[in-house]
């Protein structure tokens, strides 16, 4: 069974990325990147990032000491949030519009598998995200003179975090079929995933049914935490300020991404495969 799954993964990866005649996927990717331009994603997110950097510099410079460290923490934290919100909005609205305008139906009518369409969309959204990420990381490097290794890990971690958010936003749009619900679901998923660390740590599961009925909400959260990724370990601003002394977090980030991103992709394959047009 495992060998079969592995073979299927290899085939999809080979067809999606290694096949030189894979023009249709490239078209999807180019189309999404162009959509980013058309929707003014890059312009609006980059402008918001510039404003957040200015505000961070103003706040950071009011500190009596450790001004540079404060600017670094403020700009990294705020830019991460702006970037994630921007990319979530773009994915949900863009994908929903593709369904509304029958673009997906048009693509399906061509000789391209549904899995390739999903891979094409994910690649397109991630490339769009990278277009925003590159100037963001450069700006952070120039403005905050952060620890280089810390910045490298922070950037890798942010790319992986955005991959999880993008794949979840695609899945939410596919399942819910409504842009507004998908945006709310994706942002709630992001916030809950970032709070999961404390839920896992602080909530103790009740030992008897009586205790359970008195602690329904905390117990439900604890049970739910099983299906949520631990995004609270991703992209910590302290890596930029103090560097990385313990590589455990990085290992967890890589392992978590290795498990969760394929999980969401396969769920999207399954849901999109079952969709009737």
């Amino acid at each position, binding site marked *: 069974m495992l060998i079969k799954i592995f073979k299927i993964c290899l085939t999809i990866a080979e067809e999606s990325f290694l096949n030189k005649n894979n023009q249709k996927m490239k078209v999807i990717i180019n189309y999404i990147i162009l959509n980013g331009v058309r929707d003014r994603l890059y312009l609006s997110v980059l402008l918001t990032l510039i404003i957040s950097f200015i505000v961070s510099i103003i706040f950071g410079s009011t500190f*009596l000491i*450790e001004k540079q460290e*404060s600017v670094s923490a403020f700009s*990294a*934290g705020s830019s991460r949030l702006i970037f994630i919100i921007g990319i979530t909005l773009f994915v949900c609205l863009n994908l929903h519009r593709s369904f509304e305008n029958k673009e997906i139906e048009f693509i399906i009518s061509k000789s391209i598998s549904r899995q390739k369409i999903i891979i094409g969309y994910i690649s397109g959204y991630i490339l769009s995200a990278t277009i925003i990420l590159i100037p963001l990381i450069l700006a952070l490097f120039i403005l905050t003179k952060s620890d280089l290794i810390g910045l490298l890990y922070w950037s890798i971690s942010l790319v992986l975090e955005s991959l999880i958010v993008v794949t979840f936003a695609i899945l939410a749009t596919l399942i819910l079929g409504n842009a507004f619900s998908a945006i709310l679901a994706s942002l709630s998923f992001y916030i809950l995933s970032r709070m999961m660390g404390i839920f896992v740590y*602080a909530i103790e599961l009740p030992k008897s049914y009586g205790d359970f009925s008195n602690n329904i909400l905390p117990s439900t959260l604890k049970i739910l935490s099983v299906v949520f990724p631990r995004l609270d370990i991703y*992209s*910590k*601003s*302290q890596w930029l300020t103090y560097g990385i002394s313990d590589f455990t977090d990085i290992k967890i980030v890589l392992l978590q991404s290795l498990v969760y991103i394929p999980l969401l992709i396969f769920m999207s394959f399954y849901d999109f495969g079952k969709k009737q047009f």
Partner: protein
Amino acid sequence: MILSISSKQELDRVFLGTFIILFVFQIFFWFSYRDIGPDFKIIENPPNKKFIKAIALGDEEFLFRSLALRLQNSGDIFAGFAPLKNYDYKNLYDWMILLDNINPNSNVVPHLATYYYSLTQNKKDLVHIIDYLDSHASRNLSQKWLWLTHAVLLANSKYDDQEKALALAKKLADNSNDDLPIWTKQLPAFIYARVGDSCMAFTIIKNLVDENESKKRLITEQEMEFMKHFIEYRLNKLKSEKFDPTKCPDYKKKS
């Protein structure tokens, strides 16, 4: 109901009556709650640790800097700054400890405590600042010893509690890190000298000189000059009081 009222005049009267009744209610409402004003607490009670961890959303450094900025600007009301004597220093202490739990490496909070919050007009409040600096430095004494020095100086001068200052100075002197400047070892001597215990002051400095002579501790020439000056100065001063260093209990053992 409206439909059953026949004339327009009657309808207007109903509306006017309702308006007057509600207006009277509004006046009663204002009268009952006029004493409830906005809460002008300068420093709110700190939240608990778990809540802080949850609202950090995984980025504790960002939250730390935001809360530290808030702590730095607390008391900044639109009409100016509230005087430090009006601050609740117990709350301030709890906030500083909470911020230390989020980021124990930063020097922002001890810096604020030492150079800003220690300027309070209420001398009694200083105990919270001294305790905080002690707690902050004790987390990592080899790197944070400077804040313990500040705690010693505050306790010795502004707070004027030599007993507390001495306890902190001994803690600083007892640390095993040889990279610390020699004056961290001398601080208890200065405090003993201030309280008038010349024996102890003399013994501490003499012990340091002995350690240098037995090559246990290398002391720079300038430091040696200072210590010799300290001994000579104290001896000259104490000669008038007929002080005999050889009668100090530790003197015979160490020399």
